């Protein structure tokens, strides 16, 4: 706990992207990304669909190599370190993929138990109690013998979360953790994130479309647009920023849902 408060007063950089450029074929997805993720804090990346948020996460995880620029995790350049060193860094990671990426020929229980079985020397009984605890947290009790194909989309997400959190990681990466969940469940999940973050003081990188709810959870919000990070700042500042792209984003996501008839004539005619 003390370490946690210490970190809050003296934030260090956990992950840093420097001028990261990535092209797929002719499409330049990332066009010079500069982003710092502070240790012990929650950084949320927002942006329209298809802008490259998931690609940024994959760079941080070392799954994708940048064409230009560097990715530093705990000060180490991912493209220069050995596989072994990369694995040592990844020991601290808990990852939720956008599609959950569950092992589809294993049951829910085995999915969550896998990191414990492969990475620790815990006994079967210990593993069982740890997995049960995480499944209960995710409200998945009773589904442990189902296969991923037998779950709903939201359940799959929650299994992915349970699996990501089961080893109490130091850095978590969540790609749209609450997409597909009802408001009640996503609130529960946010509360859980908040509590575990308070307890463990982990560093979190969250990609989300759940604006503005996700702001309550975040220490920093970064907007990805046009292949670049348009500013990474605390949420209060973010909502008041005068960067035109951020303004536009804030207005479209947090503004009134229906425009008045005056602004967009014809909008209500067909309804």
């Amino acid at each position: 706990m003390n370490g946690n408060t210490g970190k809050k007063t003296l934030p260090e950089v956990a992950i840093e992207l420097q001028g990261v450029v990535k092209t797929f074929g002719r499409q330049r997805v990332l066009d010079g990304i500069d982003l710092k993720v502070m240790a012990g804090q929650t950084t949320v990346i927002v942006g329209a669909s298809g802008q490259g948020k998931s690609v940024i996460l994959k760079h941080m995880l070392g799954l994708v190599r940048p064409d230009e620029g560097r990715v530093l995790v705990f000060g180490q350049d991912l493209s220069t370190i050995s596989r072994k060193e990369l694995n040592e860094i990844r020991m601290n990671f808990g990852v939720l993929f956008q599609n959950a990426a569950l092992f589809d020929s294993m049951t829910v229980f085995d999915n969550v138990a896998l990191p414990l079985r492969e990475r620790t020397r815990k006994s079967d009984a210990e593993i069982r109690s740890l997995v049960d605890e995480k499944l209960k947290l995710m409200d998945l009790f009773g589904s442990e013998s189902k296969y991923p194909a037998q779950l709903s989309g939201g359940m799959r997400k929650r299994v992915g979360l349970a699996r990501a959190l089961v080893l109490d990681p130091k850095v978590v990466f969540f790609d749209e953790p609450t997409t597909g969940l009802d408001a009640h469940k996503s609130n529960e999940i946010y509360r859980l994130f908040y509590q575990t973050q308070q307890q463990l003081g982990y560093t979190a990188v969250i990609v989300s479309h759940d604006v503005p709810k996700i702001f309550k959870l975040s220490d920093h919000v970064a907007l990805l647009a046009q292949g670049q990070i348009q500013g990474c700042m605390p949420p209060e500042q973010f909502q008041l920023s005068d960067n035109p792209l951020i303004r536009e984003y804030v207005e479209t996501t947090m503004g009134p849902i229906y425009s008045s008839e005056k602004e967009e004539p014809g909008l209500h005619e067909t309804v």
Partner: protein
Amino acid sequence: MRNALEKIGDQVLYLLEMAGRMGLFLLTCLKCVLLPPYKMRPVLSQIQFIGARSIFVILFTGAFTGMVLGLQGYYTLRKFGSEGLLGSAVALSLIRELGPVLTALMVIGRAGSAITAEIGIMRNSEQIDALECMAIDPCTYLMKPKFVAAILSIPLLTAIFDVVGIWGGWLVGVQLLGVNDGAYFQGMYASVIWKDIEMGLVKSLVFALLVVWIASARGYFLHLEREGGFGAEGVSRTTTRAVVMASVTVLVWDYLISAIML
């Protein structure tokens, strides 16, 4: 003209790259096989899949191969009045050639294609990425049990194939066509020497390695396929290619090993 050259160059580069990748993949997997951890359970379940579940096919093909060898061998040998050599002819062709080759081809069809599809689907649905992010090495976790199981079970399957085939030849040659029972086995004992068995063993070990290597590497590098390894069609296309590639490679190596060891 320029365009055609460019395309050829492109293709050659791609092939070289793929070959290099697959070579490195093989080295990494072999390293994983030798280094700890040694876990029994996953290896056993793979032996069950690659080995035990292939036994029926092997018994069946082995028996019929031996029977047809008995039949063909009998009519050929009779022309020279030397039906007595049937036992040694059947045994030698099985132990040195047909046993290892046909076993490998059967395993490619049964287990090799399944391995490519399984790993390929895991690659496609980001399950391999997920493993890597958990700091679980896919080579150790996924490939190692398959490699160990194949190296252990394919030579055993080959041995089963040989034995069943010899009895199949006996059935046709001795029971149906009336070759002398004693001559069949006596000729066999006299002509099969350790070197023949050694050649069969070397072949089956090499084939085992080739089969798992090609099957799992094609699945593992599915996302790098030239024509795109996307979706169900990508998996099926790659699986077909892996089967063809493994079969051809086995036959080529069969010739090479024969040429070297004879």
